[in-house]
């Protein structure tokens, strides 16, 4: 029997979700073809703001990669646009001349950003914020230009502005109303939001209407109707969206503002359906993913059943959350006071918290939460059900207002049918069932199995809480995780995750946004946060020396008597007469108490007073050996093929190349490597974080060895032919370690925890991920600062700040 053809126009979030729902029911019944205008697989448009920040690339927001399409036997024409729907012949024609017959046609063309038709709006540097292309354009503009103006103080505009701030642009927001996000917030909340954003460095021009855009070829500024002007090198218009219904309209399908659909997502033409932002149901075209996903479910049902079943789609209750770090905003339903409404209000100006719950006829009809949004799922549920709240106390409607309300689990009190993930409509019961049935143990797994937290990510803390709560006592040791330190209840993983998803960029910001219990942290969390920030933002983050342990701040090892040791680099353990002479001279000049050969194949100069360090470095004029750092220490080598009668490979050459390449890289803990040229293993490759052993025509790589406290032999990671493959594997391995391990976790403990097989599956088997890891490592390496000894000796201020021992004598 011939398979039925489904053609989907629009490779976006709503369309692909519909396909996923169809495949869940009917994995093999259909032949599926997809046209997508954008030259990418389906990605998470919501997280473009994360990309805008420049710290993650598109690979990380891809929802379904090309392999997924292949696995599911779906033909994807990415970069090809559907241009014509021939409803008589039932075929779709594309710009590149393809002709595709359909039995069922799904239109999911989404929206276009609405561009104000102002004179000058066509100038270079005037863009929207809608897709990857816009995002890339903003990132590249930020490298050349300084002044950005965002037109539109709504959700999207503010997220764009925050991204531009992170890209180090001076960011002005122009808004035509006197209040930000006036369609979602009432005045008090709007005012608090503006204050908080100003504190983050955003500047606002309220109640301003733009008249025209100034400039020659490229934008140079804005002129307002009141005659004033503002300079700009980049203008981002975020004033709204227009459903994309042109193709449908031109093909004779009924449209209004968008494509008209009934409760079963059918358009006016048989066998043609519309879903997503391009569809208008009951007069509403939605602009958020939650309703679109509900529509997708209904449409899948309709297509698979070949008939209308059930009640179909009945419209959605929408709500808003702003994804700007440091400000928690939630809004839903009727939030303004009206004649027949009453409201519960909580306003704590000290804590910056505002809550308003609007009630009509004893039912919650809307809410605004600012500064603390934990009660949002509960409120939404009440609104959806139209629950009668007569007799319910304030603390039942707003549980966080209870004395010590935050203590305990957020999700414990929720009913199984209450929603955890609003975007994807996943309720508590679904998640608990998946955790128990499929034995899930991490948020990532819950994401994959249930779709919860897969869109805007706002519910991730709830999912984590529910996971911990569900696993409870049976969780065993691995899961009952220790908080990072006494300053927070969050674990290392959670802090790292929050830094990435909330796009935090400064130590203080992390502690503020994540509600640290101490104002300035401690010696445990500060270095860890400093490390996580550096990994998350390799290019932008400026290291915080006051959060470094003494050795890493001073770039030398402190000794029991307060003096320091100096270990210069000797790449691969190879030295020469010049270096040795220099070390001898410096040792004489400064009376160095002890010269010693280290276990790392180089020379240690011990017992040097703090104040002498910069001049010792200056006189040595050798790079720092990083013998004090959470970084690459040494790459030990054996003599190898040049001299040794058993040597099969150039171990010295490879060792030096590796040490030079990864020199100065920050890692969770110290990293030691070694290269031996035969299995006799004279460089002790078997007990290194990464050990390399040459054999005839190949290299073996051993991972996770340790010669320290817990002696452990490394395990065979892989065997490769060329030195390029060795280097690529090291890059992928070290980068994954950098991103995945906890701060102060050596590779041996890390691999013991996550398993060597897991590491292999990510860095060897998953080709896409391997490539991405290598690319991120290259970015990190490009951004490395110069040798610290050099930069300190040539910087008078730092020299004084860190090393001066000032002497004051009083004559009495």
């Amino acid at each position, binding site marked *: 029997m011939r398979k039925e053809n489904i053609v989907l126009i629009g490779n976006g979030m709503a369309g692909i979700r519909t396909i996923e729902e169809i495949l869940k029911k009917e994995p093999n019944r259909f032949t599926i073809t997809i046209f997508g205008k954008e030259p990418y697989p389906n990605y998470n448009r919501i997280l473009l703001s994360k990309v805008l920040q420049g710290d993650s690339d598109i690979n990380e927001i891809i929802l379904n990669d090309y392999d997924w399409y292949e696995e599911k036997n779906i033909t994807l024409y990415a970069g090809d646009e559907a241009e014509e729907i021939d409803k008589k012949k039932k075929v779709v024609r594309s710009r590149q001349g393809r002709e595709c017959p359909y039995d069922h046609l799904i239109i999911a063309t989404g929206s276009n950003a609405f561009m104000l038709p102002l004179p000058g709006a066509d100038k270079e540097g005037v863009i929207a914020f809608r897709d990857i292309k816009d995002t890339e354009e903003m990132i590249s503009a930020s490298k050349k230009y300084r002044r950005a103006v965002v037109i539109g103080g709504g959700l999207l505009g503010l997220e764009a502005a925050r991204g531009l701030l992170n890209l180090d642009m001076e960011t002005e927001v122009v808004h035509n109303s006197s209040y930000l996000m006036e369609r979602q917030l009432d005045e008090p909340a709007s005012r608090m939001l503006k204050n908080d954003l100003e504190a983050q460095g955003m500047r606002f021009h309220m109640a301003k209407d733009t008249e025209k855009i100034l400039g020659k070829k490229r934008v140079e500024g804005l002129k307002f109707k009141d005659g004033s002007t503002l300079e700009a090198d980049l203008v981002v218009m975020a004033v709204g969206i227009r459903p994309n219904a042109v193709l449908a309209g031109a093909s004779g399908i009924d449209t209004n503002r968008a494509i008209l659909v009934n409760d079963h997502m059918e358009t006016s033409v048989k066998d043609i359906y519309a879903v997503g932002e391009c569809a208008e149901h009951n007069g509403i075209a939605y602009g958020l993913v939650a309703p679109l996903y509900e529509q997708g479910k209904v449409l899948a049902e309709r297509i698979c059943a070949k008939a209308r079943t059930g009640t179909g789609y009945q419209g959605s209750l929408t709500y808003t959350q702003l994804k700007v770090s440091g400000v928690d905003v939630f809004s839903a339903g009727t939030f303004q006071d009206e004649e027949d409404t009453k409201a519960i209000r909580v306003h704590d100006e000290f804590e910056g918290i505002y809550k308003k719950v609007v009630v009509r006829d004893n039912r919650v009809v809307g809410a605004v939460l600012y500064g603390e949004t934990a009660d949002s799922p509960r409120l939404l549920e009440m609104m959806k059900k139209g629950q009668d709240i007569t007799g319910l106390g304030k603390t039942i409607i707003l549980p966080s207002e209870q004395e010590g309300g935050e203590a305990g689990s957020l999700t414990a009190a929720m009913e199984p049918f209450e929603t955890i993930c609003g975007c994807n409509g996943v309720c508590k019961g679904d998640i608990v069932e998946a955790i128990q049935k499929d034995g899930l143990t991490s948020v990532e797994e819950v994401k994959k199995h249930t779709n919860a937290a897969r869109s805007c990510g706002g519910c991730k803390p709830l999912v984590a809480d529910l996971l911990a709560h569900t696993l409870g006592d049976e969780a065993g040791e691995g899961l009952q995780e220790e908080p990072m330190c006494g300053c927070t209840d969050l674990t290392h993983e959670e802090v790292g995750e929050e830094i990435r998803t909330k796009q935090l960029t400064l130590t203080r910001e992390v502690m503020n946004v994540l509600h640290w219990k*101490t*104002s*300035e*942290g*401690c*010696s445990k969390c*500060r*270095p860890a946060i400093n490390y996580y920030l550096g990994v998350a933002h390799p290019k932008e983050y400026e290291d915080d*020396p*006051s*959060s*470094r*342990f*003494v050795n890493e*701040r*001073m770039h030398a090892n*402190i000794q*029991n008597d*307060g003096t320091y040791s100096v270990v210069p680099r000797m790449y691969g353990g190879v030295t020469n007469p010049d270096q040795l002479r220099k070390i001898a001279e410096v040792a004489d000049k400064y009376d160095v108490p002890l010269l010693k050969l280290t276990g790392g194949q180089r020379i240690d100069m011990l017992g040097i007073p*703090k104040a002498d360090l910069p001049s010792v470095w200056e006189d040595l004029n050798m790079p720092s050996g990083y013998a004090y750092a959470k970084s690459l220490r040494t790459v030990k080598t054996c003599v190898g093929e040049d001299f040794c009668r058993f040597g099969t490979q150039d171990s010295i050459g490879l060792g030096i190349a590796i040490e030079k390449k990864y020199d100065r890289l920050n890692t969770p803990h110290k990293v030691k490597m070694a290269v031996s040229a035969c299995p006799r293993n004279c460089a002790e490759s078997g007990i290194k974080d990464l050990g390399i052993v040459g054999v005839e025509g190949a290299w073996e790589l051993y991972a996770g060895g340790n010669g320290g406290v817990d002696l452990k032999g490394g395990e065979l990671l892989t065997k490769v032919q060329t030195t390029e493959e060795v280097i690529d594997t090291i890059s992928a391995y070290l980068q994954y370690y950098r991103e995945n391990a906890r701060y102060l976790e050596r590779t041996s403990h890390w691999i013991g925890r996550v398993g060597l097989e897991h590491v292999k599956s990510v860095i060897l088997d998953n080709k896409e991920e391997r490539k991405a890891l290598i690319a991120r490592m290259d970015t990190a390496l490009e951004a490395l600062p110069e040798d610290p000894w050099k930069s300190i000796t040539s910087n008078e201020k730092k020299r*004084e*700040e*860190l090393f*001066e*021992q*000032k*002497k*004051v*004598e*009083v004559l*009495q």
Partner: protein
Amino acid sequence: MAETTETTAVYVADVEEFTKGIPKEIFVNGESIAFFKTNSDKIRAIRNSCPHKGGPLSQGIVSGDYVFCPLHDWKISTVDGKAQAPDVGCTHSYSVQVEGSSVYIQI
């Protein structure tokens, strides 16, 4: 109480010579003293010697009113020099005055 009877104010440095978050070591009459500039611009001074094994407190990580010793991570108050529980001990704290941009210490 004997200590407070005979002290003299000694000029040690200008305010700008101190950096927030990074302590500074100054020898006054041969005695090594660790100076701290807090986030609210106060200057504090304690003997640069940890009550545990004499670690140089001027090299520790600073957090609010405390410094963590670089040798074995004891937590010492920069206000009164006391080690925080569970550790016990105390290092001398000096009183500091700032006049204009000049910093004086009572010796």
